[in-house]
């Protein structure tokens, strides 16, 4: 017999993968990846997109949409069981709440990751002249963002009273990350009025900006980027100043790890301690 957690992962995966929301975003992601880098490339007068163009295009245009897959699905995961009156029957089985939480997290993570792999990966294979594994790193970063968003969504789900409340809060967070923080307004204010060093916390509190910076420093700029600081902009200069050229990626990875772990652990503890 398989461990009970596998049955929960399987059920959650199958529920999520059949969701119209997920299917719709897989298609949207596919067309974003397949279409927009071409637009970018041709607008720059290039004949075909290079891998760099593809990575940059994905990071700028596709990443902001990814939380819209994980957040709504994840926000319904725990509170949805309560709303549909299925939670009591589920928890009265010889399983622990840890099984339920872990099963739900990984079931949804695998489903959303599969959607991303199909949407982004297949599109990339179609448009790349010579398929390269470099684009796989972009997918890995996207999986990281998915894990962080699922953790946040589960935290929202554990705290919310019903599904509609959870969905509302989840969409607000997407708006916060993708629009409010990211619209450049905050960055502009900080750059003009204060030391650019203050841009660093703005990056750290926004997982979308974190994955974009990780993509830039891990995949796009060369190892000797610090030689030509002028190309990095005020944020890059501030990060080199604080962390040194070698410290930027560890800082970004650590911040991302915190974004994955902190909401997930908070969601887990809340779910475990809460009465049904």
């Amino acid at each position, binding site marked *: 017999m398989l461990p*009970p957690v596998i*049955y929960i992962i399987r059920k959650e995966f199958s*529920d999520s993968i059949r969701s119209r929301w997920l299917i719709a975003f897989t298609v949207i992601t596919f067309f974003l990846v397949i279409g927009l880098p071409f637009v970018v490339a041709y607008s720059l007068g290039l004949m075909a997109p290079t891998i760099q163009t593809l990575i940059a295009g994905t990071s700028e245009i596709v990443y902001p949409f990814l939380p819209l897959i994980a957040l709504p699905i994840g926000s319904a995961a725990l509170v949805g069981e309560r709303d*549909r009156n299925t*939670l*009591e*029957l589920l928890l*009265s089985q*010889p*399983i622990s709440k840890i099984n339920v939480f872990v099963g739900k997290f990984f079931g949804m993570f695998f489903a959303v990751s599969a959607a991303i792999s199909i949407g982004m990966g297949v599109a990339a294979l179609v448009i790349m002249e010579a398929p390269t594994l470099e684009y796989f790193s972009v997918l890995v970063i996207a999986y990281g963002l998915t894990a962080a968003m699922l953790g946040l969504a589960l935290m929202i789900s554990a705290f919310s009273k019903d599904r509609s409340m959870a969905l509302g809060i989840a969409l607000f967070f997407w708006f916060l990350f993708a629009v409010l923080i990211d619209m450049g307004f905050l960055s502009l204010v900080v750059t003009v009025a204060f030391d650019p060093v203050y841009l660093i916390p703005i990056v750290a509190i926004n997982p979308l900006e974190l994955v974009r910076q990780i993509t830039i420093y891990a995949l796009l700029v060369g190892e000797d980027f610090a030689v030509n600081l002028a190309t990095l902009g005020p944020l890059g200069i501030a990060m080199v100043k604080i962390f040194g050229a070698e410290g930027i990626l560890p800082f970004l990875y650590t911040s991302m790890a915190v974004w994955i772990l902190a909401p997930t652990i908070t969601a887990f503890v809340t779910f475990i301690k809460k009465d049904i």
Partner: protein
Amino acid sequence: MTILADQLIKVDHVTKKYGRFKAVRDASFTADRGEIHAVLGPNGAGKTTLFRCMLGLLNFEGSITVDGNDVRKGGKWIRGQVGYLPQHSSPYDDMSVEANLKFYAGLKGINSNRVEESLKEIRLTRFRDRKAGALSGGMKQRLMLGISQLSDPPILILDEPTANLDVQGQLEFRQLLGEILDKGKCVLVSTHLLREAHEIRLFKGHVLVVNKGRVVQAGGVEDFMKDAELKDHLFIDTGENKPDAMVKVVRDLGFKEAEVHKAQIVVECNHEEKFTILKGLSDKGFTPESFRVEEPSLEKAFMQMTSDDLKTTTEKVTKK
């Protein structure tokens, strides 16, 4: 079926608070293997909360053990010994009957061959591919019972099992439940419908009366009736005799409450006292045409228990 020691369930001074509200107050009782307990109480009495505490689904004060295992430490194991049919829960509506059974069989660590047997037991083989959401209330409840019985657990907890069913559904469910009750399991069934408790033969066993979060009575049916201090009603047909003369004899025997009603004398008395009355009448030359005894109803006993409890609570509040 796992063999367990006696005194299977021990609930000891359990209190469950939601903020300042006490849903269960200092509840204590035991239940042994093979016993059937009817958990009676009005809506909102705390029956469901008590069951959820017993399954380790809620945090509570006090102690609950099942076969010596503490619910707080061994909740997972205990849930493996209990088939629970919650009142306010349902299977997954978007999954078929069979898929629901297979999913829960997986969680219980049961071989999926058992699913086939279960489908037969709950008479849903024909509907195996139907989505649970498309089942009637009665069929859905049978599916829930099937899920609770997948591992053939030694303990069965049923929370208001027929509360949301129509008459047809109730009849079908009771028939199915009757078959399970015959298997000699430790069963706790909550209901606020005493008629239902009669019909599913719960009163062969024990009674647990819960009111305002407190267990106000726990024991056998006889004890329950005794504690309620309700008496039999003896109806004596006077026939050719003069009712007034007869009632005087009965009153002289010490039964001051005796009354004449049409051609009958109605006397409230204990079980043994009715022979004294009949003999007393006979000694005075009155031979009753016929008589019948009406035993106190469970409804009356239940009302007495819960109203006394209500009175006590009110008195306590007034004193404060």
